[in-house]
């Protein structure tokens, strides 16, 4: 397939267009993704998450520059929240990564968290695949990580970096436990500000609690950085490097990739059946059933039973 060739050669236009297709018409993209899949597996996926303002984009920018010095190719997926009212979004992460725009070996794509027919997770997994096949050595997924879908996205990563900063007050409690548990490396950014050491102590305490539960052989390190001054970036990457080696040596990388694949299969399957639900049953029948439940004072469980019957009939008809 010509498109596949272009993507493997790093044609940014082809890559960008395929990503758009993934976001808008997954069915059309799927055959291409199928072909690309065999060329994947090389890229290491690094998830970068943390509360707004903690410096994720700045750190992503600096880590990318660090990697570029080593001639590594980088892809960045920058996820920003979408308006719950309009579905629109202002995608402004690129403003912190301006130098990278004209670097031929860096590809940055801004993504709104909503409006992914089929879920953010499925889209992101596909974009990771595309960037992998395109030849990227490292792919950063940058997201705020407060919504369930965004936490899902972080689980797609091989390495998860959690970035926090001093002066968040009680916000450290607000960081959902789910995120704390999946952080492999912790970063205290803007560490030149007051409260930096206190924050480190708090994180250490929380990690202690999690450690007891998990019994893992990797103790998440806490790195101090000042992203805007490029301080601590080398040390941070050294830890990422260490972690990747640890993943490879232990069975962890395989375990994570297995989880990732399982999740991908599940997401695709779930989405596939969700689409079928609407296609086979149809909007009219669904609306009618809803009305019936309300008018006859029936319950949703019966509604599911009724709709399932319709679905099965349609499904068997298709098969035969």
């Amino acid at each position, binding site marked *: 397939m010509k498109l596949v060739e272009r993507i493997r050669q790093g044609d940014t236009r082809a890559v960008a267009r395929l990503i758009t297709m993934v976001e808008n018409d997954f069915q059309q993209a799927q055959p291409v993704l199928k072909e690309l899949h065999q060329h994947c597996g090389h890229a290491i996926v690094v998830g970068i998450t943390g509360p707004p303002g903690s410096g994720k984009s700045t750190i992503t920018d600096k880590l990318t520059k660090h990697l570029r010095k080593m001639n590594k190719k980088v892809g960045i997926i920058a996820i920003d929240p979408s308006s719950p009212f309009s579905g629109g979004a202002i*995608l402004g992460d690129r403003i912190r990564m301006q130098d990278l725009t004209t670097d031929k070996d860096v590809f940055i794509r801004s993504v709104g968290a909503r409006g992914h027919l089929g879920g953010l997770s499925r889209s992101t997994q596909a974009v990771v695949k595309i960037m992998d096949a395109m030849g990227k050595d490292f792919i950063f997924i940058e997201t705020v990580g407060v919504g369930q879908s965004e936490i899902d996205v972080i689980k797609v990563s091989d390495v998860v970096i959690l970035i926090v900063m001093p002066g968040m007050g009680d916000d450290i409690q607000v960081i959902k436990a789910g995120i704390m548990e999946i952080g492999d490396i912790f970063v205290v950014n803007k560490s030149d500000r007051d409260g930096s050491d206190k924050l480190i102590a708090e994180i250490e305490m929380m990690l202690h609690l999690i450690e007891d539960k998990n019994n893992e052989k990797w103790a998440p390190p806490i790195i101090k950085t000042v992203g805007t001054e490029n301080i601590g970036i080398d040390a941070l990457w050294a830890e990422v490097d260490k972690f990747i080696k640890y993943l490879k040596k232990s069975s962890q990388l395989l375990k994570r990739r297995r989880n990732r694949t399982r999740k991908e299969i599940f997401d695709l399957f779930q989405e596939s059946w969700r689409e079928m639900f609407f296609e086979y049953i149809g909007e009219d029948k669904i609306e009618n059933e809803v009305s019936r439940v309300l008018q006859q004072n029936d319950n949703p469980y019966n509604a599911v039973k009724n709709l399932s019957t319709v679905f099965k009939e349609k499904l068997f008809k298709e098969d035969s």
Partner: protein
Amino acid sequence: MKKSRIRVLVAKPGLDGHDRGAKVIARALRDAGMEVIYTGLRQTPEQIIETAVQEDVDVIGLSILSGAHMYIFPKIIQMLEEKDMSDILVIAGGIIPNEDIEELKKIGIREIFTPGTDTKKIVEFIKSHVAVA
């Protein structure tokens, strides 16, 4: 392919630092359901084009109040042609005299929104020129 969301690049080319309009429009477009990529001040034509490619935008909105539009806009249009990206809708706003507007429309800026334009008008223009699901 039917798109579910229009993607717009709002760009400030050149040295002009007046971004009130660009920011207000970015918000208005977001409130109208679009995804807006805003990359800040002092964008070179190269940066604008490269961003448009990677983000696969449907629209490029150029905001300029410094009078440098007759140099910068043709450059951007030219680069879009070279990259075979002339299907992107290019619109502009800022301080652009009427006599320049005709000239710019001839080279490919589809519409120019001068001071006092209602943001609803811009939203409608984009929606009527970019197909959505």
